[in-house]
């Protein structure tokens, strides 16, 4: 009994990590680094280098925040998996595992760009092209690897929809909502071809649309995770 209570509390802590994750990401990117709106991929190496020279410590600080956001993403992925496991309760919960694996890899999509930006800010006075290369690497890491989010969202959505109990653990529309989020990330995958326009890494379709769906996704998922955990607690009592 005590143990069950403890577990519900750990799960809720994991959900709060999911709320902290986008807050830390945004705090790092915007007030600290000044990277909202995103840097322009068409800017010259000298212009990019100047940004890293003028706000060196702000960028260094911001990367710590983004790195922490990556850490917060791990428990969030874990609590999603734990609740998925309640629906996919056979001996082989493969969709739960796939979500967990993709979520674990997604943590690095916060940490690697943070480290690439930190590297650019680490020696801001070296040749501008090197700073530009690391900056490009970081942005491409942020925008392009949509595939991991696809795995997470499609697996989570599929499990929600497969829930056959009388009173499903998550509302069915939440499953379709996950599929929609997965769709919204696709344009980012095309960013490799562009330095200007909507598919560039500062573009409407590659950056702003996914950024606009990513935030609400966290909030909606967290609300329904809390409901599911409360229900689990009530069912056990």
């Amino acid at each position, binding site marked *: 009994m005590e143990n069950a209570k403890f577990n519900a509390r750990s799960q809720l802590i994991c959900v709060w990590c999911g709320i902290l994750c986008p807050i830390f990401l945004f705090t790092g990117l915007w007030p600290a680094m000044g990277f909202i709106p995103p840097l322009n991929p068409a800017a010259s190496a000298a212009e990019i280098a100047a940004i890293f020279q003028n706000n060196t410590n702000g960028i260094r600080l911001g990367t710590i925040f983004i790195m922490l956001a990556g850490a917060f993403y791990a428990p969030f992925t874990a609590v999603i998996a734990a609740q998925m496991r309640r629906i996919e309760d056979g001996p082989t919960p493969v969709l739960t595992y796939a979500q967990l694996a993709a979520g674990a890899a997604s943590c690095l999509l916060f940490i690697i760009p943070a480290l690439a930006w930190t590297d650019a800010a680490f020696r801001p006075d070296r040749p501008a092209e090197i700073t530009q290369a690391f900056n490009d690497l970081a942005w491409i890491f942020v925008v392009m690897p949509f595939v991991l989010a696809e795995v997470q969202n499609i697996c989570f959505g599929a499990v929600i*929809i497969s829930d056959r109990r*009388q*009173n499903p653990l998550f*509302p*069915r*529309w*939440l*499953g*379709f*909502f996950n*599929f*929609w989020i997965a*769709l*919204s990330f*696709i*344009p980012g995958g*095309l960013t490799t*071809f*562009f330095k200007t*326009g*909507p*598919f560039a890494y500062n573009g*409407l*379709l590659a950056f702003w*649309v996914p950024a606009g769906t990513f935030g609400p996704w966290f909030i909606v998922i967290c609300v329904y995770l809390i409901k599911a955990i409360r229900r689990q607690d009530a069912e056990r009592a």
Partner: protein
Amino acid sequence: MSSNVVTFTPDSHLRDPGTKHVPGESGVWVLIFGDMLIFSVFFITYALHRGDDVDLYRRSQTHLNQAFGILMTFLMLSGSWFVANAVQAARAQRRALSAKLFRCGFACGLFFGIIKFFEYSGKVRHGITPSTNNFFMYYYLFTGIHLLHVVVGMVVIAVLSSYVQKGTVDARKIRNIESGALFWHVVDLLWIVLFALFYIAV
């Protein structure tokens, strides 16, 4: 929600015009409207950029093969017709017919994909790629993302064609079949807009 499912019979909305029937389940509309919202952003982006350089877009549009465009539109519309009739057949418990109609819809999608392949490869052979100009960037990317939708829709239809034949068609099954069919209609609808934007030169 569950009480609705119990009282719902497949054609109740047809017999009693007073009751309103929302096709599929409410959840699938989240995906449908969400998807249409994203495509609306695509279309508005295109329209705004076209306004900046109308001449370039007009000149580029003449390179598209309108016959291909019309044929693909015909295939999309036919696909929707087959799928809509497949749903009707399922409601009438004519399961074998329903499966056959779904397979016809699938074939429409397949031919659509084949034509797209020839269209793309013909363009590339003439040196027209996404980096040629902004018009062709939008053309390749938007029709490419749509083609991805077509492939997903074909998978859905293929699943439905075997799903409809497994056991009697009850209310729950009708709901799932309608949800899948709705996705195909969205794919069709989006193509109509793409066709108007890219193929019809104004």
